[in-house]
Structures are given as C-alpha cells and as structure tokens.
C-alpha cells in the first residue's frame, strides 16, 4: 500500500536543497550515510508546525515559508564585507573563530592565539578525514528534533573545540557567525568539549554584514562539560531584521560542574533558540537565562529542556522578554526529573513586558517529575509597565521615555545580572540600552 505524504512546497524545496548541496558537503562513506539517515529522519518528521507540541507557537511551515539554497563559498568581496561587520561584533581579548555564510574563515580568525590546552579544528576537516573512524559521530546527537536532523544532514562546517582537562582559560572563545549572502542559508554545527576540571567562557554571536537580507542561519552546538568543570556560554543573536535563525544547543553536564548559559535575541524576523541540557552527573549546577528584545513583527522563541537525569543537581532559569509593536515572544521551559533523580532543585521564572497592545507573549512551563523528593517550581507573568511606578518617576522629573527605559532596564537586569563575565554583562546591558534608545 502506498501512503501519500502530503508535503508543503517548503518541504519539497528542502529535499531539493539537500540533493543540490550533497556534492558540496564534506565527508563520504559513513558520514554520507549518516547524512542520508538524517535527511530521511527529517523527512519523516517534516518541517515543524503548530500541531507538533514542541513547536506549537513557532509554526515554521507558516513562518519560514521557503527554504533557501546553501550560500555560495564566500569570495574575496564577501570576506571584505564580513571583516567590516566583525569590527562591531568582536570582543577585545577574545579568541575569535569566524564562520562566514557557514564556512570557517581562518584568515579572519585568531587561530594562532589559542591558549594552552585549547585545540580548535574545523568540522569540515574532520569530516573529510577518512582516517578518523569516529568522524561521523559529529553529526549524531541524542535529541530527536526535525531541525536538528536537518542540521546533521546539511552541516557544511563549524568549529570543533576541545579544552583539555584542568585548563583554566583566561580569555573567552568567541564563535562569530557572519551572514554576507542574501536569500541563502548557512548550516553550521560545532562541538565544544570542556575537560574535567577545566574552566572556559564561550561566546557565540550572530550578525549580518551590511547588505545581507533574507538569509537563514541554521546552527547546532554540541557541548559536553566534564566533571568539576565550569563553562559560561553566552549567545548574542543580532541577525538582520528579515533573517531566520534556528539554533540548537545540545549540552551534557558531568558531575560537580557548573554551566552558566545566557541567550539574548534581538535580531531576526523569525528565530528559535532551543537548548537541550542534560544534567548527567551528580552535584552540578545549571543557570540558564535569557532576554528577548523584539519589535516590529519579530518572532523570537526560546525553548529550554532541562533533563535532570541524576540526583542532587540544581537548575535555575530566568527569562525576560520586552516586546513592542506586533512582536511575538515564546518561552517554553520544560524541566524533566527522571526516576531516581532525588534532591533535584529546579526553578524557572519567565516574565514578559508588553509595550504595545498588539505584542504577544506565550509562556509555557512544563514540569515532568518522576521522583518524589524534589523541589521544583515555576512562575510566569506578562503585562504592561506599572503605571504607578511610571508616574512616580515622572513626578521626580524623568520624561516618559526615560522612566520607561529605567523600568525596562530594571526588568531585564535580573536576567542580565546572571552573566558572570564583567565585559559580557556590560555588553548585554549596553545592547539593551541601545535597543531602548532606538525606540525613543
């Protein structure tokens, strides 16, 4: 019996894009088999839509509309434009690893500047190395999500970073994605391994070169944090206002370790950051926080799945959204406490501030608890600025905009203050301030 699977135009195009891209994607043999299996897994699930619970509020069939072909390899002109864009994104003192239109560019990166204990390779070179028996593993992950499967099939490049056991890095590692080509897509996949007892700061930025329009950035980052290790992971998404950004972080945390994750979304027409974080070793602490600053018709989705697989771990999530015009923010936070994960302590608080009548916030907390000696809680609010507070500030001489800005800064502060690195915290704070000033 034949079952006709009805597909949208978008989905048909995706398969075509894969067929066309195939020859350009690194890796043969087992790697090509894994890619084929991934595109088949993707095709079984299809492009996420509103009847898929995890994607209920971010219907990619409606929002993405079309899938764009892979961006061409960046030429000299593209690199020159990327270099210009970099100047506003680069952090002083950080080790930059730059991907332009999804391709690693050594001449824009600080490869020679690696600290002791850090090794950086590209996804492409590993996938192309037939002598590496484990190379195809870089395209595998535990998460079963259509967009992660699509990423595995299409990933053209990325960085593979290893921080050796015991290495305590002084400077942040900064992965920078720069989009130059318009109406094209980039698929990147990176791996970060933080060894036992190691400490590191990882920043990931998304930005557009001046004229890049209507592009799609598809990214996945697979992170493993060892035992007694500490990682601060800050993501700053400032894609072009008509771009699509779909990013997945797949993170595993070992024992007695700390992960401090922060995501800031202010760019993109449609974006989704989904973090799948597994607490796999006892006695670890997760702090996962984020801010969405959205205006116009922007749609920004932050979805976190925190999986307490073992006992004695703590997780804290603080999320804030500030929405203007007709913007739409989504926060989905799921906390899973597996059987036997006793003494789990998980808390989640999400708040949205609606600055206009037409903006929309969807907050969806989900707790799945299969152990009986745990502390788990969540809270969600959404509303306008408090008129009483606004009047108090205005009666003290602040203009309407100044009063609003001060209250919004305070509202965001609780999430932004969770960033440990001083420079990054101040940067996130100044981004929020500029965003507020641009409203005025």
């Amino acid at each position, binding site marked *: 019996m034949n079952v006709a699977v009805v597909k949208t135009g978008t989905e048909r195009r995706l398969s075509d894009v894969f067929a066309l891209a195939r020859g350009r994607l690194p890796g043969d043999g087992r790697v090509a088999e894994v890619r084929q299996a991934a595109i088949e897994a993707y095709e079984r699930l299809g492009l996420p839509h509103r009847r898929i619970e995890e994607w209920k509020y971010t219907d990619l069939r409606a929002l993405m509309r079309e899938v764009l072909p892979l961006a061409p390899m960046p030429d000299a002109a593209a690199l020159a434009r990327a270099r210009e864009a970099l100047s506003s994104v680069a952090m002083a003192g950080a080790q930059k690893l730059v991907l332009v239109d999804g391709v690693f560019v050594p001449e824009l990166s600080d490869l020679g500047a690696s600290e002791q204990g850090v090794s950086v390779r590209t996804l492409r070179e590993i996938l192309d190395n037939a002598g590496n028996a484990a190379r195809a593993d870089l395209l595998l992950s535990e998460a079963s999500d259509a967009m992660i499967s699509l990423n595995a099939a299409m990933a053209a490049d990325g960085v593979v970073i290893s921080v050796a056991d015991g290495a305590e890095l002084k400077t942040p590692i900064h992965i920078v994605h720069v989009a130059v080509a318009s109406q094209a897509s980039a698929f990147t996949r990176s791996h970060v391994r933080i060894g036992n007892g190691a400490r590191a700061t990882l920043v990931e930025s998304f930005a557009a070169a001046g004229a890049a329009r209507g592009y799609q950035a598809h990214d996945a980052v697979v992170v493993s944090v060892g035992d007694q290790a500490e990682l601060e992971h800050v993501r700053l998404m400032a894609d072009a206002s008509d771009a699509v950004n779909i990013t997945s972080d797949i993170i595993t945390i070992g024992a007695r370790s700390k992960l401090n994750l922060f995501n800031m979304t202010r760019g993109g027409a449609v974006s989704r950051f989904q973090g799948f974080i597994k607490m796999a070793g006892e006695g670890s602490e997760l702090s996962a926080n984020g801010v969405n600053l959205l205006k116009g018709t922007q749609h920004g989705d932050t979805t976190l799945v925190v999986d307490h697989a073992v006992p004695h771990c703590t997780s804290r999530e603080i999320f804030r959204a500030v929405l203007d015009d007709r913007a739409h923010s989504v926060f989905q936070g799921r906390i899973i406490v597996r059987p036997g994960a006793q003494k789990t302590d998980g808390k989640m608080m999400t708040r949205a501030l609606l600055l206009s009548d037409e903006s929309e916030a969807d907050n969806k907390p989900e707790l799945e608890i299969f152990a009986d000696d745990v502390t788990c809680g969540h809270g969600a609010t959404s509303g306008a600025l*408090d008129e009483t507070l606004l009047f*108090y500030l205005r*009666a*003290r001489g*602040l203009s309407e905009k*100044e009063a609003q800005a*001060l209250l919004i*800064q305070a509202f965001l502060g609780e999430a932004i203050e969770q960033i440990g690195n001083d420079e990054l915290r101040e940067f996130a704070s100044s981004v929020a301030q500029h965003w507020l000033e641009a409203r005025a």
Partner: protein
Amino acid sequence: MPLLEVKNLQVRVEDREILHGLTLTVNVGEIHAIMGPNGSGKSTLSHVIAGKPGYEVTGGEVLFKGEDLLAMAPDERAAKGVFLAFQYPVEIPGVATMTFLRTALNAQRKARGESEYSTPDFLRKVREVAKSLNIPQDMLKRGVNVGFSGGEKKRNEILQMALFEPSLCILDEMDSGLDIDALRIAADGVNALRSPDRGMVVITHYQRLLNYIVPDFVHVMSRGRVVKSGGKDLALELEESGYAQFDDAA
C-alpha cells in the same frame, strides 16, 4: 506673585466629581496645612497638582508662579520645582536608589538648562543629606524603597525633597503609618527645609503632625472644597470638635 494659585478647581474621576470648586493660594515662605476627613478630596488635590493621570479637570485653574500648571507634563512640573511627597512611596525593584536619585536630579537640571552634577559633587550632596536624615549608606544601594520600613520610605521622600530643592512641597499624609520617633525624624527633615523661598502644603488627617510641622495657615476640606480657613489654632479646634460639623456646612 503667589507661588501656587488654585482657583475654583473642579475635578472628576471617571463619572464622579471629587473637587467642586476648590480655591487655595500659597505664597513662598508659607506652610499651609490641609485637613479633612477621608474622602474629602485632599489626596486628589495633591495628585492633580503633581499631574497624576486619571483625573479630569472640568473647571478652574492651577497656576504655579503664574504659569498654567495643568498644561505641563508631570516631569515638567518637577523640573519647575513642584514636589509631591507620596503617601505611599512605590517600590522599584532593580533600580538602585543612588541611580534613581542621580537620574532624577540630572533630568530636572537638564530640563532647566543647568549642567549635570559631577559624580563627586552628587555623592557629597547625597551623603550629607542622608546623614542628616539618619539614612544609612547601604539603604541607598538597595532598590528604591525595596524592603524599606514605612519610616524609611517617608525619609527617602524627604531625602529627595532636600536633594531636588523644589520651591513647592506637597506632603501627602506624611504621618500615615509612622510611629512617633519616625514621625519626629521626618518632621525635623521637613522643618530643615523651611525657607523664605519655598512654600509647603501639608496634607493630613490628624492634628498630631502639626505639633511637629507648625503651619502658618490651616484649611479644612470637606466634600471637595475648602470649608474653613484659619491660623494654626484651627487645627486644635478640630481635634476637639472633629470634622462632623463641616459635613453640614459643605
């Protein structure tokens, strides 16, 4: 020219008229007490002078140094020298008191075309005033009024009054929720700001406050208008006889 002239002011909230033609004149150097029972419109008067949204002025006018106060935004009034010490000062989590004070002071100075205070000048001034009001430094680092006691909140209002140096101070039920010691500290703070260049309107339900802040004039409000005015002795009379007599007069 009087500092404040309220002429035949009529104010509505939604469909209810709260003030029915209130008249009051305050000159610099004077302290006026406004007394009256709950619901007589005392707080409405203070809110309308400060520019709180939600009140509809249906008649009369309010002049501040001869200018139409009702045409100004609340922040404009503040910059011109109108200060309302709130009956219930709000808590603003996430905004440090110091940041708030500096932002407000500099916003007012900027609006008046004055230069912003330098950080050392600002800090010196705040510390000086805070000390005189018995406000500990660590309170200034906390969020505005967050976790402050009732007395601390009122002292924080007076701290702002001292810092902004307004020419018209309106104190709305400053004594509510204060014990006698807290009341004395707050009143001392207010008295220190008495000046020939400044006028004050002290709104209170009880005569007690006026033992500490001695007014030059006392006005009794009932049902949305001033029904009796006199010297400071009027407050004592009221303490004896209560407000009931004015219900008939109104």
